[in-house]
């Protein structure tokens, strides 16, 4: 199923992959801020992940409640096999389109 991923969806999925076992709301947000220089609200991340989960691209599980979350559980996310394929396909498309353009892009 050739589903297209939005720009922000790709970023979130990449962040989830990078964080591996520790991907949950706050860590994803910090990762995006640190590496993609994107400041987003927890709500935006949540709805994006919800959407990705409803499309079967990520899965989630609840962790133990922690005091710094006011006794609430973390919700950890992981890319599904379908998610990984979908992301790879999107990025491949980007890479192919970028071929030969790197020097130009670096300059700008």
């Amino acid at each position, binding site marked *: 199923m050739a589903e297209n991923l939005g720009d922000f969806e790709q970023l979130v999925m990449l962040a989830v992959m990078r964080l591996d076992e520790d991907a949950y*709301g706050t860590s994803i*947000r910090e990762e995006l801020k640190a590496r993609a220089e994107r400041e987003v609200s*927890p*709500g935006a991340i949540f*709805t*994006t992940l*919800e959407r990705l989960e*409803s499309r079967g691209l990520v899965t989630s599980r609840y962790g133990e409640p922690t005091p710094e979350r006011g006794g*609430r559980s973390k919700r950890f996310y992981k890319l599904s096999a379908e998610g990984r394929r979908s992301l790879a396909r999107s990025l491949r498309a980007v890479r192919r389109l970028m071929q030969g353009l790197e020097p130009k892009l670096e300059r700008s």
Partner: protein
Amino acid sequence: MSTVRPPHLAERLLQSLLDERSRDVVVGDLHEGFHAVHERRGAAAAARWYWSQAIQSVFACRISGRRQADARQFDFEPVARVSARDLLRPAFRQFRDRPLYAAASCGTLALAIGVACASLTIVKSAFIDPLPYRDGHELVSLLTSVDGATSAVSTHVFEELRGNAPPLAQLAGIRPTSATYTNADGTSNILVSGVTSEYFSLLGVSPVQGRLWLPDETSATIVSDRFWREQLSGAGDVIGRAMVVDGRARTIVGVMPAQFVPPYFTNTDAWLPADMPALLSDIRTRRVLTVLARRAPHASQQDVEAFLAVFSRQQQDRFPELQRSQTWVARPLRDELVGSARPALMAIAAAALLLLMIVATNLAGLSTAQAVAARHQMAVRAALGATRARLFVEQLVDTFVLSLVGSLAGIWIAYGLITVAARYQQFFLGRIAPFSLDLPTIFAGIATGFLIGLFSALLPRSVVRVVANDTLRSSRSTTGDAGVTATRSALVAAQVAIALVMLVGAGLLIRTVQHLSQRELGFDPSGLTWLQVNLPGARYRTTEAQLQFERDVLERVRQIPGVTAATASVGFPLWGGTMAGLAIKGAPADSPRGEVAYLSVSPNFVNDIGARIIAGRDLLPTDSLNAPKAVVINETMARRFWPNGDALGAEVYIGPGTPGREWNTVVGIMADMRAHGVTEAIRPTSFGTTYQYSWPRRHIAVRTGAFRSATLAADLRAAVHAVDPGIAVAAVTTAEQALSAGMARHRLVMIALVVFGGVALVLCISGLYAVIVLNSQQRRREYAIRVALGASRGGVRWLVVRQALVLSVVGATAGLLTAVMGTRLIQGLLEGVQPIDPVTFSLATIALLALATIAAWHPARRAERVEPIETLRAE
């Protein structure tokens, strides 16, 4: 760490605004982020951060996220459970997704519901709501009737009926007088009613403070709530206090409640026990008592009328001095109170109903267009498995939400309209308790809104067919098919018809008001100002004292800068005069005695007031106390009683009682004046001099030229007070004010009809425009072919305009027929114009057809510019 907590309010908001799926995760993330920021940048920064992130998160979860995730459009599981929320949220989202349609629907509905509720409130309070008295339906007003004109009742007749009239369980008499109230600050004019002992129990009202007076308390008084607030500063200890009325001390024993509106003399300030011995010492033919009665429990209105017919015959037999045509009649109190306002109320109610109808048809047209526009989407959803029932329920919910919002806005509009109407209540329903919007009316308004909504939801369903395959295969056009066009055309024709009826009604009222304002008054109202004074107490008992006052005041007011003339009278033309019996010397003894109005005026009155003598002379200073008595009569009186034209020089007696003591000579005939206001018929009227007939009150009238002092009212008061500081001056009035008050009712109905008619016109023309645009879009291909085959551009333009004209002519014909039948309803309101007035009917029709042509002009221009090749290629 646990001591620091995120802002409580923000957290609460998040808890309530987020759904259960997102709540824990998002709030947890925010909580964690909050502590991180707090450690790095302190409490204030953390709170700021929390708030801004919370708001953004709510926005993301509730709005932008939902918009993408809104399941409704794609949720077609036939067995899926549909919650009310699933239906309601998209229904409210109409306001965002199709704001123009939503606003137009709600706006027009609100307007119609508002106007209808306001009219209903007024009509209901006039005809349906119980009168604010105990068993108000049993109350009647007892009147003397002479030649069909009704007036008050003789005290002697009242006494004879009291207790001797089986069908009337209770009678109460009211004798209103203007009185002078004196307190530490000076004097003021108040309205007092002398009432007989049954008055309060008959109406079933009692004081809110204090008590009713006892039979022997002849000096007691009960004051109105307004008087208590304004003159007694609402003091808590007024009961038992003394107040001075007309120089006599009285004891306040009670204060009436604020909501008590007396059926007659609504502005009464105080009620006193009627002085029956004094009233009974007067002659039988003087009629001064206003009489209310309650029908006995088993007596019908017919019983009362039959009894009074017998009573009238007995009176005629016993008292030959009565006018022959004099009878006594009983009218249901409600008829008396609403009476003359009926046609005005009916006109406004009918106009509101028409407005409601035009809005219903307009909304049906709008929703048909909307249904056509949404057809493609519906077809997609039907193809994907949405059941017809589901689609229909959604459509109903959408319509009901629009109706509800529109109706609620309408109730709000009605509230505003009623507040405004209450300000003008005195002109048409002054004697009915003040208007207010009540719950039944509000429910009726909302129910009507829903009915209109249902109509506008069901109509498109029957004409706009959603057949998945057909619709999807055809192009995604916004135009409709033949059935839709026919329906919308019929709706527009209906709107044209209704709008025309309203235009005709408005036109007739405009013509009436125009006629009234151009009506010959018979005197010159320009620059005329007057005031009224009572001359109280023993000081003014003699005619000489009254005349001295009159002369002194006139002398002073003539010196006020700008005053060119001044005159005095007892009873002023626009105020009216006393009705009195007329006897003509030399007439056969059994010839009928008529009734005429009588006023006392100072010499040269006819000249000073700007009226015209057509025969004989004006009253002169030489018509003094000891000179032969002289009267000037108006033309109507001369014509009615001297049809042979020999009125001048006739000797007459005008007044109650038996003629013969002193005869008056008719010395002049004046042109008719609209002495009782522009809308009333001219009554036979006679004028004598204050020198010969004087009562202890005066109207002082002055005329100012081009220069009218800004302080005129104050100067007039000062002139009166310079002569006698103890005299209270009632309101100073100008002739212009009085004349426009006389026309206020006609003006109000006119304004209502013009405004309603204008709204109807706008709705109807916009509906017409929409249909013409739709039609010409559909027929674009046809136009292109015509042009390609050599038709002229003008010919194509005419095709479009002709459509508009055909629709309008069909509608206008129906409208004219309805108007011919309907204008009879407002006949009672019309003056100087026939209900079927050719000028009004044709002007309204022409205006409507002209507007229809203008509305068709824009689509016609577009049609004529059709490019055959492009259009046909696109097809």
